[in-house]
């Protein structure tokens, strides 16, 4: 309402002397209600005074309040005590202030207390009890010639015991009373009347009745204890089953659905796990299998549970008119979330033992969720450390690799500038050559860094064209020609590979990097094999060398940025391969490395080929002609 009017609102509680006489639970409830109001955006005020309506009105005037909303007192004792018949007084004295009277909490909103006295046995059980008494009477009548009269109550007692053991307390009580009556009717003088001639028989009746009731009750108690033990065992088993299953998952969402499933089976309820997100707002964690819907009020209750670490909602003393029960997930580092349970049949579910059981489940879930959260924290910390380490590696690699060539260039050129005839022409040429080579290396490094940046930023514009494969291979071989030295690069391309769909400039760079890599990491005279094959929908290319190969543990890591194989003493920052992979992946392909049978490394990449290349029929239909 306040939101609808865009107004500020104040929740007021007037503490009258009666307040002190309220039971603790009711006082708590007032506190909780006020706190909830606070969470819902209200300012809360507690006033002290004997006359509720007067206090409210004078406070309202000091604050320029325009509207007063008051709950209509129903049978609620709290409302009676807090407001009494204040509504009338309030309306009379309000003057210019509007007073809204709304329906307050209804009886359904009161804490639901399980009924202690309930008929637990079906009517048929009473019928059976009746039958057993009849049977006992029959047996007694049949055995009159053989037994003394004092044996008869024993037969009835046996029947009562049987009824108690089989059908419970009610039928047992019925059977006890009936037994006394039957005994009186059939076996006590005068027969076939309920009158008793000998007053001593009354003692027999009393003893029979008490004995029947006591044995019946004891039997029922034993049975109930056995039932409780069995139930307890079942619950323990259910708890254990859930705990065990929780252990097998490592994601909070999985935990939430496991918990939901187990608790649902046990209590016929909808269950959800709520965890705070980064901003502290509770969010549902459960998968799609539970349709757990929360309205704003429920969300408020859940938030309260998270903040206070106490259970609330349906079946508790706090905010009991919520649609569901909210239990805190209390872990070693505080409340980490909320377990929400919305029973299908609220009355049957809210027995105290059920509540305890749910709390036990909540504790298990809390422990499991905390375990996962801690693991995630540890992982995040690890990731941060690794990111930091990578960043440092990048900085040191880049600065080292930029400085080394610069040092040579500056050194060589300055010594040439400052020399006064001491360097012979050969030495001079050597210095110049060194400066030149280092400058070229620097250029390559800068290019790699730029390419890497573009790959990283996803800024690679892949412009695919249908090209003859040997054109790309040829162009890259020409580009590395002067670095090959004595090496032989043997190429094995399909005889008529047709056209392949790729970005020539980028794939040329991949091939150049792979060839450069082979040149760098293998002996000066070892051969390099470049081969390719085209299948229906894939182009497979491989560059293989006969060098030392790659340590098996490094096969994947060599594609990491700034990673350089441990054994390699070769210069470079370790960007070449990750650029290659970036380019190949930007083509929708994949790239990997293997060790070659017989020694050496092989780098393979596969690019998807879709559609057919253009066939310029008209041009190809040229007549053969010897020129």
């Amino acid at each position, binding site marked *: 309402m306040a939101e609808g009017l865009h107004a500020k609102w104040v929740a007021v509680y007037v503490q009258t002397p009666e307040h002190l006489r309220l039971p603790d639970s009711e006082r708590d409830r007032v506190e909780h209600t006020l706190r909830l109001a606070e969470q819902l955006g209200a300012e809360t005020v507690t006033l002290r005074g004997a006359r509720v309506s007067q206090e409210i009105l004078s406070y309202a005037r000091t604050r320029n309040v325009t509207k007063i909303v008051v709950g209509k007192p129903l049978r609620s004792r709290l409302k009676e005590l807090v407001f009494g018949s204040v509504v009338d007084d309030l309306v009379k004295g309000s003057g210019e202030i509007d007073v809204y009277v709304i329906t307050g909490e209804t009886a359904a909103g009161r804490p639901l207390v399980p009924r202690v006295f309930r008929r637990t046995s079906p009517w048929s059980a009473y019928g059976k009890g009746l039958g057993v008494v009849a049977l006992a009477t029959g047996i007694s009548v049949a055995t009159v010639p053989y037994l003394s009269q004092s044996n008869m109550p024993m037969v009835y007692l046996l029947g009562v015991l049987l009824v108690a053991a089989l059908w419970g307390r009610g039928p047992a009580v019925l059977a006890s009373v009936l037994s006394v009556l039957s005994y009186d009717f059939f076996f006590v003088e005068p027969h076939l009347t309920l009158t008793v001639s000998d007053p001593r028989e009354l003692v027999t009746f009393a003893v029979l009745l008490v004995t029947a009731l006591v044995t019946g009750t004891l039997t029922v108690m034993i049975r109930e204890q056995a039932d409780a033990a069995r139930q307890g065992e079942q619950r323990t088993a259910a708890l254990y089953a859930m705990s065990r299953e929780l252990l097998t998952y490592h994601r909070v969402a999985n935990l939430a659905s496991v918990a939901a499933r187990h608790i649902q089976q046990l209590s016929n309820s909808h269950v959800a796990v709520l965890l705070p997100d980064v901003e502290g707002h509770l969010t549902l964690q459960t998968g799609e299998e539970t349709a757990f819907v929360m309205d704003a009020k429920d969300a408020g209750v859940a938030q309260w549970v998270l903040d206070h670490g106490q259970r609330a909602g349906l079946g508790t003393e706090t905010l009991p008119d919520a649609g569901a029960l909210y239990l805190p997930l209390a872990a070693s580092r505080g409340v980490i979330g909320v377990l929400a349970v919305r029973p299908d049949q609220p009355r049957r579910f809210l027995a105290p033992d059920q509540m305890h059981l749910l709390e036990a489940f909540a504790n298990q879930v809390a422990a499991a969720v905390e375990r996962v959260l801690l693991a995630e924290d540890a992982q995040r910390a690890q990731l941060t450390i690794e990111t930091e380490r990578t960043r440092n590696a990048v900085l040191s690699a880049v600065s080292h690799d930029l400085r080394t060539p610069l040092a040579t260039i500056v050194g060589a050129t300055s010594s040439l500038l400052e020399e006064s005839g001491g360097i012979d022409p050969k030495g001079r040429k050597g210095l110049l*050559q060194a400066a*030149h080579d280092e*400058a*070229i290396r620097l*250029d390559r490094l800068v*290019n790699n860094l*730029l390419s890497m940046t573009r790959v990283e930023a996803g800024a690679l514009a892949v412009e695919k*064209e*249908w*090209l*003859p494969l*040997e*054109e*790309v*291979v*040829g*162009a890259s*071989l*020409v580009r590395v*020609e*002067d670095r090959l030295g004595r090496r032989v*690069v043997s*190429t094995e*391309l399909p005889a008529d590979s047709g*056209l392949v769909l790729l970005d*020539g*400039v980028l794939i*040329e760079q991949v091939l150049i990097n792979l060839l450069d890599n082979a040149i760098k990491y293998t002996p000066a005279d070892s051969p390099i094999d*470049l081969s390719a094959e085209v299948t229906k929908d894939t182009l497979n290319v491989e560059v293989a060398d006969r060098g030392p190969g790659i340590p098996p543990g490094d096969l994947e890591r060599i594609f990491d940025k700034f990673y350089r194989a441990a054994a390699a003493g070769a210069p470079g920052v370790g960007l070449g391969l990750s650029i290659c992979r970036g380019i190949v992946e930007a083509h929708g392909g994949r790239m990997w490395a293997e060790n070659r049978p017989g020694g050496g490394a092989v780098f393979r990449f596969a690019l998807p080929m879709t559609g057919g*290349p*253009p066939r*310029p029929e008209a*041009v*190809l239909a*040229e*007549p*053969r*002609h*010897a*020129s």
Partner: protein
Amino acid sequence: MPTQEKEPTPSQQSAAVLIVDDEAPIRRFLRTTLTAQGFRVFEASTGREAIAEASARTPDLIVLDLGLPDLNGLEVTRQLRAWTSAPIIVLSARNQEQDKVAALDLGADDYVTKPFGVGELLARIRVALRHMARSNGDVGEAIFSCGDLRVDLARRTVFVAEREIHLTPIEYKLLTVLVRHAGKVLTHRQLLQEVWGPHHTEDAHYVRIYVRQLRNKLEPNPAHPRFLITELGVGYRLRTNEDRQTA
């Protein structure tokens, strides 16, 4: 880059080169190098200055950086081509293939990617000047040779290692265009225009397919060409003996 410098040809002795670059160190090193090679050198640091200098000095060749502070290098090329046919060699950064192609299609003669060796630049300059001289009336050589490859334009015969190669008319036409511009890069569009005529300038795959056929006939290993070089993203270049030395 170590280069085996040839004796400058007489026409080069007095050739005037206009260097257009906004970076003073680059202008300085180009001036030093080109002066030492016998060229007369003028400089400009902006596009407008370049156009003014070009009309005032009428240089025989222009070395033009594409990244100028005022006018786009492409725009400078367009304006220069409106009135001068002096060869233009473009200086560009890597990853600028589209700019290179645009400059070449606008009439630039060749390009060099920064950073470049002087040998490479001088080779491009020589090819451009030679080509210029030829189109001004000098009779080109009737026989082109590069390594094992020999093309006799008068007799219309092609030999690789003394073995005669038979070409289809289009393959031969393509080869003669490349020979006529030997040493110079030709874009797909330029090749299409010269071989197939002005109506096929978008069909780049024609060129690719014929270049491949030509390579299959001329190159010992088409996947590692020695004569017909692909400049990916730009076009093709037929190597000259001089290129083979400086590469």
